[in-house]
């Protein structure tokens, strides 16, 4: 007791800080240090010397190609999912459909946004694969051979529409509260001032909604960018997206340079990190209107 009272640090303060030590140790050991290890490793060569060569090597055609496909799939599925998700959220909030549709859509979105990974790939193979339900239905009943049009589920387009299955519901879940925040009074006020529906949307709704829309789209983008299981089960290793390249690198050093693998991981962190930071910033702007 005497040591505690004579020391400058209050004993209670020490206990206070001890309380979150287990959490901090866990976060450091299993989240922060492993990630930092890769980030630091990206700036060294196998001999242990500091270098920017790995970052430069990321810009080789094969690696850039992988980033480019990944970005395209993520952007396309985020925009496509965002657009359909927005219209769905709009329909249940402002479209005047019965309220049971709203509650079932939200429940279903909670399930579907979590239905990703390997089973999602199976579902789309069973639906749009060569012997899938829709493919066969179109062939037998409409006389239309989907695969003769050059369509292939195991491709950029196929992966995009598969990802949209979890992107659409995620957009619905994020945007519904934002649309709920549009006050009736704003519409009435703009109507009294003589605004058309178009003007109301362009000059009132969009300026209020754009942080939510942009933020949600960025979140969808990051969501698709980091996903691997669906793509892996759908296309095997044939579609060269970044997570699959990284998977192959972890398994068998396909880049023939471990530190280049770290740089590949760093690139992923930078892309998902930037989109998440922008998302958080935009969300804080959006929340101003939802109070």
């Amino acid at each position, binding site marked *: 007791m005497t040591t505690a009272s004579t020391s400058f640090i209050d004993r209670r303060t020490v206990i*206070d800080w001890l*309380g*979150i030590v*287990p*959490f901090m140790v*866990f*976060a450091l*050991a*299993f*989240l922060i240090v*492993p*990630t930092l*290890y*890769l980030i630091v490793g990206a700036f060294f060569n196998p001999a242990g010397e500091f270098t920017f060569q790995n970052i430069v090597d990321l810009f080789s055609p094969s690696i850039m190609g992988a980033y480019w496909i990944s970005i395209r799939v993520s952007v396309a599925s985020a925009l496509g999912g965002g657009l*359909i998700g927005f219209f*769905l959220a*709009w*329909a*249940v909030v*402002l*479209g005047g*459909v019965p309220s049971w549709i709203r509650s079932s*859509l939200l429940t279903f979105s*909670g*399930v*579907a946004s*979590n*239905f990703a*990974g*390997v*089973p999602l790939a*199976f*579902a*789309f*193979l*069973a*639906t*749009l694969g060569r*012997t*899938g*339900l*829709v493919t066969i239905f179109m062939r037998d009943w409409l006389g239309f051979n989907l695969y003769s049009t050059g369509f292939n589920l195991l491709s950029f387009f196929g992966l995009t529409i598969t990802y949209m*299955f979890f992107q*659409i519901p995620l957009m619905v879940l994020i945007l519904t509260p934002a649309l709920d925040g549009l006050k009736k009074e704003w519409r009435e006020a703009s109507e009294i001032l003589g605004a058309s529906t178009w003007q109301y949307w362009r000059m009132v709704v969009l300026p209020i909604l754009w942080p939510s829309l942009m933020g949600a789209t960025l979140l969808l983008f*990051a969501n698709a*960018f*980091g996903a*691997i*299981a669906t793509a*892996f*089960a759908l296309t095997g290793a044939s579609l060269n997206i970044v*997570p699959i390249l*990284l*998977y192959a690198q*972890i398994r068998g050093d396909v880049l023939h340079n471990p530190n280049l693998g770290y740089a590949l*991981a760093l690139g992923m*962190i930078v892309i*998902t*990190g930037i989109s*998440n930071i922008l998302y958080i910033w935009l969300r804080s702007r959006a929340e101003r209107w939802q109070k």
Partner: protein
Amino acid sequence: MKAHKIFAWIAIAIGAIYFFVPLIGTFEFSLRMRRGVYSLDAYQSVFTDAQFRATFGFSMLMALVTIVVGMLLIVPTAYWVRLRLPQMRPVVEFITLLPLVIPAIVIVFGYLRLYNSSSWIPFTGSTQGTNVLLTFSYVTLALPYMYRSVDTAMRTIDVRTLTEAAEILGAKWPTIMFRCIFPNVMSGVLSGAFITFAIVMGEFTMAALLNRPAFGPYLQLVGANKAYEPSALAVIAFAITWLSMGLIQLVSRVGKLSPSRP
């Protein structure tokens, strides 16, 4: 009917097609194993597969251990931050969101470099060690969901008053924690637990790269080698997700019915 109402119904129709056709397609495909007639052969083939039972059991056990370990870590932390370290709240919240920012494959890549058999802490040197590391990786993945649901539940109770009341009645820390705080945030603990269950059951990346025989890698293996079983497995996986989400809805509804505190 107004134009915008028609437009709303069109949007609903497109959404319904997008959601339901793949599910119907999967279900229909899973019944096609016997030529010419619909049958449950694919399901029978799945359920009689010893690998299925082994990997399903393994993932289920992993999910349970993950939930217990995760909650023992997160509930006391969330409680402590609310009670004593409110200034650390943004930091803790930020850390719990990191697993949504850093892709799972990057995290497990770091593990494999940091905890391999020739490192200081050779988790992957033994099967038991790898299982422990896999559990911790799942806790990490579930961190955002667990923390958010527990913290939301904690917002509805007055942590300070509860603690003071328990202290005045002579309760020690374990009693306060397990007989006072845990029961009061049970709705949050349970919804966090169910979503964790759904995540762990379908998880592929961590288990595949740590070489553990979990359900996710098994799904991928079946998908690469069989025709009809994958659809049956997808139906089963979807049922698991539905069950978990349904239970969350149920728990949150029960939580709302119980008398609210200031």
